[in-house]
């Protein structure tokens, strides 16, 4: 297909259809029973950082603002990137197709005059909007809550120093994480009956990333995400002895690189969707 033919495709019509899919998926992502876990995952760090700020304001912990920002960086790496966003994306994206198979409702989409590629796009966008609403907003809120007890000093840092830039970078990393992991788990939900198997595999792979040889380190999402965060957290204690030292990629490479990988995974998912059959008896 040449570029002229691509330009001639009914893109507005496709957008309308994708939007209709997003609207239908909205309920599944926000109001279904499994969404309870998403609320828990998203709210837990917010409550934790909120409680920290409240207690620190009342008792005075003697931390500096810099120390609190490093605490938040740790929370972001562990509670968000490795837990909430990762698991949240498994719940949201792996169920976009798999969940409908189990509920025996996928055929309604397959019996509509919609290109499977548009359906994949619609479901991905719906999942991404939900993941961002849950986790990027949560990460931003936690960033604001953690050092809130510093009052005017934090206000000064936020508005006159690089506070807003840091906030923006954390939110950007959260959005990119949702986009990257989302694409991976969307595809996994189409390929495998039990998406928890690839989820566990990816989790282990991402977890051992600091200890992998430099070439393998670059074949992971966390490697690019970590390089984008304002404060990088390296493995501490005896584990640091096994960590490899790799130059992090520059921002101009990390962001488009992640987006490119995401696109490639989504294209694979779209190709897979075209071959997908609805035979619930076999599922």
């Amino acid at each position, binding site marked *: 297909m040449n570029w002229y033919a691509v330009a001639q495709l009914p893109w507005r019509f496709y957008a309308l259809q994708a939007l209709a899919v997003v609207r239908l998926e909205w*309920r599944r992502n926000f109001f279904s029973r499994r969404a309870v876990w998403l609320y828990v995952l998203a709210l837990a760090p917010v409550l934790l950082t909120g409680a920290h700020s409240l207690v620190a304001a009342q008792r005075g912990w003697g931390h500096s603002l810099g120390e609190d920002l490093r605490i938040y960086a740790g929370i972001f790496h562990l509670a968000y990137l490795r837990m909430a966003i990762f698991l949240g994306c498994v719940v949201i994206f792996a169920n976009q197709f798999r969940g409908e198979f189990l509920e025996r409702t996928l055929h309604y989409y397959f019996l509509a005059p919609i290109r499977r590629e548009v359906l994949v796009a619609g479901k991905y966008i719906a999942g991404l909007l939900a993941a961002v609403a849950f986790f990027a907003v949560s990460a931003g809120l936690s960033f604001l809550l953690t050092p809130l007890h510093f009052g005017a000093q934090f206000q000064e840092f936020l508005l006159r120093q690089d506070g807003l830039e840091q906030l923006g970078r954390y939110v950007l990393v959260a959005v990119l994480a949702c986009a990257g992991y989302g694409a991976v788990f969307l595809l996994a939900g189409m390929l495998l009956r039990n998406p928890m198997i690839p989820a566990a595999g990816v989790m282990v792979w991402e977890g051992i990333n600091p200890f992998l040889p430099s070439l393998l380190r670059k074949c992971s999402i966390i490697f690019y995400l970590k390089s984008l965060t304002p404060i990088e957290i390296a493995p501490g204690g005896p584990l640091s002895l096994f960590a490899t030292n790799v130059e992090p990629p520059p921002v101009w490479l990390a962001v488009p690189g992640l987006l490119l990988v995401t696109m490639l995974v989504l294209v694979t998912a779209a190709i897979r969707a075209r071959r997908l059959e609805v*035979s619930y008896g076999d599922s």
Partner: protein
Amino acid sequence: MTNGAITFDNVSRFYGDVLGVNRVSLSIPPGVTSLVGPNGSGKTTLMNLMTGLIRPTRGEIRVLGIPPDRPEELFRHAGYCTQFDAFPKGLTGWEFLYGFLRVHGKEHAEADRLAWEALEIVGMKGAAPRLIGAYSKGMRQRIKLAQSICHKPSVLVLDEPLNGLDPMARAETIDLFRKWGEQGLHVIVSSHILHEVDRISDRVILLSHGYVVAEGQIQGVRSEVKEHPIQVLVRCDRPGVLASRLFEQDHVVEAKIDQDGRGVLVRTLDADKLYLLLNRVVLEAGLEIESVAPADEDVHSVYQYLIGSEGGTV
């Protein structure tokens, strides 16, 4: 390739080692066509194949000239009411129809209008604002039917569409199918309730163990069953006289006076010869014939002769 028909060209589908359908070649014209066969005979497989939910292992399918693996084209013209009794959670009847009409690419006003029109056709306007989860089985069946017709398709594939409907709704739905058939739509219905198939269909496709064992108009299919004599009920004023004349004929296998004593049930190997004989008897013996009607040119009989099973009943 026939653009106005649904064609199967040597289509087979296997589920691993299990046969779904085998070497099916068909051309289905407009009108009401019933797929008849016992459970596991391949009715649903055939429907899933023609709507692209599954792919053939071998062979080629075209629906109005469109291959089923192009849903973006096929479902502008086709609708499929499946057997699956499941719905997206948390939607009302109206939201279900409206939401998927938007997936079809319809704008808000058109989707709203089409949704209400379909709800009216299936008699569900009153229940439209209620959650589907609170519907009865019959209501769920009707909302599914509404969803398959709401975009006004010219090919309608309906898998056991009368399941769960009360007698009144059944009669109304059968009338709808007939009306659509008369309007030139392709209406393909699967059913195991044979007397309903008789009422609905212009044509039947009889399936057994994944094979098409017969297809065509019911009378045509019946006449092809050579080994079974054709039964004809002749109602007349002097059945005894008629019966005695019938016994003289080679092609008559059996002739017995009907239970009410006002007719003769004849089993013949050659219906044409029988009808010629009746004309002669009327002229020679002055017999008054009230009616002559085939007694086994229905799906139930054909089904029994070809498949050797009783089929289903209401």
